[in-house]
């Protein structure tokens, strides 16, 4: 069970208090009507799904009910930072060498 630092409550909390809400930083197109079906489909469904560093959206559902972003390694599950909506991530490359443990 992960432990996640809520940037609003200012504390580490258990994963059970949160819900993951997918990849972060996917803004709604400003003019959806100008999007082609291709572009709209990309917005709706196509994701980076990276093996490694991932910026993702979470909500502190049982706590302050705020959405925020997290930078997490999808292999080690290490969380490098959490930050408020509107802020930019400060970790954009893996701080250390690829970790073990992915294989069966």
């Amino acid at each position, binding site marked *: 069970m992960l432990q996640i630092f809520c940037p*609003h409550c200012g504390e580490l*909390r*258990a994963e*059970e208090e949160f819900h993951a809400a997918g990849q972060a930083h996917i803004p709604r197109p400003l003019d959806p009507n100008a999007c082609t079906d291709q572009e709209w489909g990309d917005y709706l469904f196509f994701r980076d799904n990276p093996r490694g560093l991932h910026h993702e959206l979470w909500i502190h559902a*049982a*706590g*302050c009910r705020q959405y925020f972003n997290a930078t997490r390694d999808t292999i080690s599950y290490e969380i490098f930072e959490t930050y408020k909506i509107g802020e930019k991530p400060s970790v954009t490359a893996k701080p250390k060498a690829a970790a073990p443990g992915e294989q069966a």
Partner: protein
Amino acid sequence: MTAINVYQQRPEGGKAESPLFHAGLADAAGKGKATAGIQLRERKLLGHLTIRGDGHDAAFAGAVHKATGLELPGALTLVSSGESSLQWMGPDEWLLVVPGGTEFEAEKKLREALDGQHIQVVNVSGGQTILELTGSKVRELLMKSTSYDVHPKNFPVGKAVGTVFAKSQLVIRHTAEDTWELLIRRSFSDYFWLWLQDASQEYGLAVKA
């Protein structure tokens, strides 16, 4: 105040049933063992107001203070004065608890003080209730129920947190050394009551009036 619809929602007199009315707490009161590790009391029919606004705005904090006499608390804290308390619920949300029947006055005062600001005040008195737990085993009971750390080092008096509890959610408020409060939603109150009875079996549970 035409922009917002505000009115007295509580009748004068009339039959009132708190969320745990049908649990028969009144009948059970005083009948438990004096040695019970957990004592439970429903702090019922209080006035609950949700206040939303910009916590970073000094004008907002000042107006809330003016209207309530309470300093706007920061993250995870609870301030109280007499029968009233003000609790941080989120970066733009607070809960004001006042004696039952005074919430309409309190709301009017708040709206007056906050006039011109973008805020929300909502009477939620009918939707929630507070369970007060005291006794030597309360911490153990809480540990059975929530993954939040209730050790006094982490959860001193005056702290209040929204967290998971059993298979639902609520707010835990630490109000005195051996006294904790659970702020619960009306529709979940029977579930929590059942849970608390079950989880406190080994410690003994006594209901207080």
